[in-house]
């Protein structure tokens, strides 16, 4: 039986040599966590199922730094590595694969030019193309909006891009379905309302997407402890849970989270 996956996420500031892992709260208030390849190696040794690197830098030298981060990590870490942030063209995609990435995650570029999803799928296979969606809960209704019952009433979810700095008006759930049709192999679904809050995953949002696509969904945003991961796996169809802060600051090891889940009947790789 396929195991539910635990994926540590490294938000990387690449404006310094080697890069550094940082973590924000609701996409703001940045805190420093460590060196990317060192953290990745630690998580690999603890039993992480996959690692996601997200470039949150705005500087121009970042591309070379990200390549060197991936190259160094891939020498010692033998699990899938996904890389995202700042991927603008199929040439950017090729360059991260060449450095040793196994998957790319696209967000802003895919919203602006959805064909890039098909281009990646054609050249590297669907499994290599993860579409990242940053979703913000909104009140009210409107055309083309998928309404979701939430504790705060009926809501829809809006896609954000440029790292949460701008909004698109695009319905996040409808976009997930379109991304699947274009060839995405996976959806990385982040709740912007929960990100960095430690309040737990957004279950209604996660369920709404899982029920409408037939590709794996990675739940993200809000993980504060192992109980939250148990909750998202027992109450939604998410294939994987992504977390950052709980691993970075030593509150939980990946191995501890997995033991916690296994004891409660969740099938994980130990």
């Amino acid at each position, binding site marked *: *039986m*396929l*195991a*539910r*996956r635990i994926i540590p996420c490294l938000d990387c500031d690449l404006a310094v040599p080697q890069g550094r892992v940082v973590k924000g709260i609701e996409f703001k208030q940045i805190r420093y966590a460590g060196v990317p390849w060192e953290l990745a190696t630690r998580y*690999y040794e603890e039993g992480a*199922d996959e690692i996601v690197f997200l470039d949150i830098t705005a500087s121009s030298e970042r591309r070379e730094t990200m390549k060197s981060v991936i190259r160094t990590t*891939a*020498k*010692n870490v*033998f*699990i*899938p590595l996904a890389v995202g942030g700042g991927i603008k063209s199929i040439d950017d995609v090729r360059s991260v*694969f*060449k*450095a*040793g*990435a*196994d998957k790319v995650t696209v967000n802003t570029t895919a919203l602006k030019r959805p064909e890039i999803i098909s281009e990646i799928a*054609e*050249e*590297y*296979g*669907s*499994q*290599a193309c993860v579409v990242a969606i940053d979703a913000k809960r909104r009140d009210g209704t409107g055309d083309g909006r998928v309404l979701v019952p939430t504790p705060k009433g009926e809501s829809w979810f809006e896609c954000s891009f440029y790292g949460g700095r701008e909004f698109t008006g695009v319905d996040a759930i409808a976009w997930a379905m379109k991304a699947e049709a274009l060839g995405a*192999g*996976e959806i990385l679904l982040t709740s912007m309302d929960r990100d960095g809050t430690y309040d737990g995953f957004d279950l209604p949002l996660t369920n709404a997407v899982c029920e409408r696509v*037939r*590709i*794996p969904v990675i739940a993200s945003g809000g993980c504060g402890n192992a109980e939250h991961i148990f909750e998202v796996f027992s109450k939604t169809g998410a*294939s*994987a849970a992504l977390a950052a802060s709980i691993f970075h600051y030593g509150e939980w090891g990946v191995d501890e989270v997995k033991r916690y889940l296994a004891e409660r009947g969740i099938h994980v*790789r130990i």
Partner: protein
Amino acid sequence: MTIAVVDYGVGNLFSIYNALEHIEAGPQLITEPEDLTGFDGVVVPGVGSFGRCMRRLSRFEGSLRQALEAGTPILGICVGMQILFDRSEESPEEGLGWISGDVIRLPDSVLVPQMGWNTLSIKKEAEILEGISDEDFFYFVHSYHCVPEDRSVLAATTDYGLEIAAAVSRENLFAVQFHPEKSGEKGLKILENFMRFTRC
């Protein structure tokens, strides 16, 4: 003592190269069919569509067959396993046909692709599975799966709501649907087993 990795222009060979280098297998990327001689073993990777892989691999068909007939151990990985079969529902191109059978799409009853870690059910002794047990997890990512006509080639299967061929072996020919180069220490163990077999 070296292992050739057939670099026929599909996807990303960095991971498999890196893993083989890590276990000191002396990998060499081979881009020309005539250079595919004198190796202890050959790895045939593969990502993307069956048809695209076959179109690009076709110029290597003769030299790969020579290696197979000369008894050189060969390891197909992922789509590199699928192309050993006769044909695939994915593409009109014919496969190598070294193993009789079809490659078919995963049913609509499951999420496609299968993406993630799954355990094996070991069906027979095979050199590449030495030291591997039914409790060990491997990283799978695929939308199609192989159905061999002769089940005696099955070395291991995996359970994804249906039984899926995870590893096949026949004499010096081996193939795995999962990615040993991305399956942590147990995956490296499989590559080490293959390397050890090439040096027998």
